[in-house]
């Protein structure tokens, strides 16, 4: 009897949830345009992109917009459920963040426009779906040229990266670009975050700096690399502001918020009638150099030399310790 009652109550709970209509009940919200944002994993960078997207799209459109933000917590099945749910909620536009999330959305959604933010897929995929893309990557060549301008005598760098799909072509490009500049790029891959400690401890004794491209997994464990960089007085060079705030010396990159802004501009164009396929892939051009003077001092590096080269390249300089542009 007890078992029967427990089953009954659980099934009742499930039926209750099944009958629950999770579409907004407020009539005002129902009139609004619905935009579904899918975040693959919990990370401050994702929150910044989302904030930039929401702020800009609300400002760009005359119509009121409601955002359905779904966080998949790194679970493929959950992410699939969320996309299905957004489909049923009749959202007008999908904004998946990251390449993998965009791939899944493009595979499942064919009748509504998609803006893949911080994502890059082949043109053949775009031709088959209503997909526009905002690529957030800066080319490794640009980063290595900037490093070479600051440190013309350096000949060996250690490049730490995870086995993320976006990383592989970038790593190859970094090695080639380094070779062209006379810099030997030592590749150090991690498959899981705990690998980072071993990798950090086993860098070549000849290395003259540690380089990290835009990589969420390595960024999560940046403290491990900061410790090694401080101990060995090596510059820790990254590609996003968050890692510099957490102890890296400097980075050439774009603000995560700005990626969301660019995504929202594309979304606004689509919602105003431009077919997604007609919008070229948006690439980030407004580059900044994020510096952390305290960290640079601990790594025994010259802040002035970095600022001088940043100014020469017309990059905006952002001191992350006081959060304002110094130039």
């Amino acid at each position, binding site marked *: 009897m*007890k*078992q029967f009652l*427990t*089953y009954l109550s*659980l099934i009742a709970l*499930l039926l209750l*949830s*099944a*009958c*629950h209509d*999770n579409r907004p009940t407020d009539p005002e919200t129902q009139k609004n345009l619905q935009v579904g944002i899918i975040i693959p994993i*919990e990370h401050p960078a994702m929150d910044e992109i989302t904030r930039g997207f929401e702020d800009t799209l609300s400002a760009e459109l005359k119509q009121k917009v409601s955002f359905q933000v*779904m*966080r*998949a*917590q790194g*679970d*493929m*099945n*959950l992410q*699939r*459920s*969320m996309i*299905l*749910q957004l489909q*049923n909620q009749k959202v007008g536009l999908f904004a998946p963040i990251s*390449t*993998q999330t965009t*791939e*899944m959305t*493009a*595979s*499942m959604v064919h009748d509504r426009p998609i803006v893949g933010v911080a994502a890059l*897929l*082949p043109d*053949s*995929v775009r031709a*088959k*779906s209503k997909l526009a893309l905002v690529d957030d990557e800066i080319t490794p060549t640009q980063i290595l040229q900037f490093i070479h301008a600051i440190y013309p005598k350096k000949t060996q760098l250690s490049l730490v990266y995870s*086995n*993320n*799909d976006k990383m*592989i072509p970038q790593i190859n490009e970094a090695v080639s670009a380094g070779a062209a500049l006379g810099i030997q790029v030592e590749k150090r891959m991690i*498959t899981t975050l705990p690998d980072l400690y071993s990798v950090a401890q086993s860098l070549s004794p000849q290395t003259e700096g540690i380089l990290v491209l835009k990589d969420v997994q390595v960024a999560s464990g940046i403290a491990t690399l900061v410790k090694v960089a401080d101990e060995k007085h090596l510059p820790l060079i990254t590609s996003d502001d968050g890692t510099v705030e957490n102890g890296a010396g400097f980075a050439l990159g774009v603000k995560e918020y700005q990626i969301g802004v660019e995504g929202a501009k594309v979304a606004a164009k689509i919602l105003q009638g431009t077919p997604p396929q007609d919008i070229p892939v948006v690439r980030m051009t407004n580059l900044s150099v994020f510096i952390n003077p305290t960290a640079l001092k601990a790594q025994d590096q010259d802040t002035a030399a970095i600022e001088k080269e940043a100014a020469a390249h017309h990059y905006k300089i952002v001191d992350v310790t006081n959060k304002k542009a110094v130039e």
Partner: protein
Amino acid sequence: MFALLLATLTQSLTLIPLALGINLSYTILRATDMTIDGSFVLGAGVFAQLVTLGFSPYLAFVAALVCGALAGSFTAFLQNGGKVDPLLAGILSSFILYSVNMVVMGRPNINLLTTPTLFSAAFVHSSVWGWLSVALLIAMIVIAFYSVLQSRVGLSLRAFGDNAPLLARQGYPVTRLRVMGFGLNNLLAAASGAITAQIIGYADIGMGVGMTLIGIGAIVLGQHLILPFIHRHYLRAGSELIAAFVGIALYFFILNGLLRLNINPIYLKLLLGVLLALFLRTATQKARLSS
């Protein structure tokens, strides 16, 4: 309600072979085979790599199944002679498969959005045709698996799980049975991986994480719901299969239901775990009372 049922059905469908594989290892062979986390990705990876290289999707699918079976056979090989504990052997295989999968795929993610697959033509025609073709393939796998379970080999596998030492003393080829059992369950996991990759549009090195645990949880749930009502022994194999279907469908029904209640995804696994624990607790109490 219809949307929820449809979401549950489409999500469960692709994981039915995985549920059958886990049912084989967990219920019949009485072993928790963690290899499945790796062989799920291996199936997806082999399929994606071969179709990307221009091979026929049918050939790629068969190759994915063969590779899954080989992965399972390797786990059985580690166990043979009692050298490595089944759980540890599975964990070791899964660990090794991470590197194998990277080598097979050549990169962590292979995009299948523009590559011809087993179902791409049907999905171009319409979603209904697409899902019907998926259901047809799943039905063929289920019928083949059920036939194996009902055959002499299936009965031997069940006897192996019940009492392997006794079987060995009676002169049965226990080593071969272990290889067959683990090979078959990983073949099914690889089939599920290959089908999932075609539906979600990519194969990814991280897509197998937690699949074994989801499968075991779903199967336990299904068995505690279905098996108490089945008392005839000759219905055992069929009822176990139905329990696996019900379990996996219930898992996705609960997952989608909780999402519809707008529950923060951070708490989803906690809630799913608590629900599972409630089911298990009532079932254990019933078993105690009847004994």
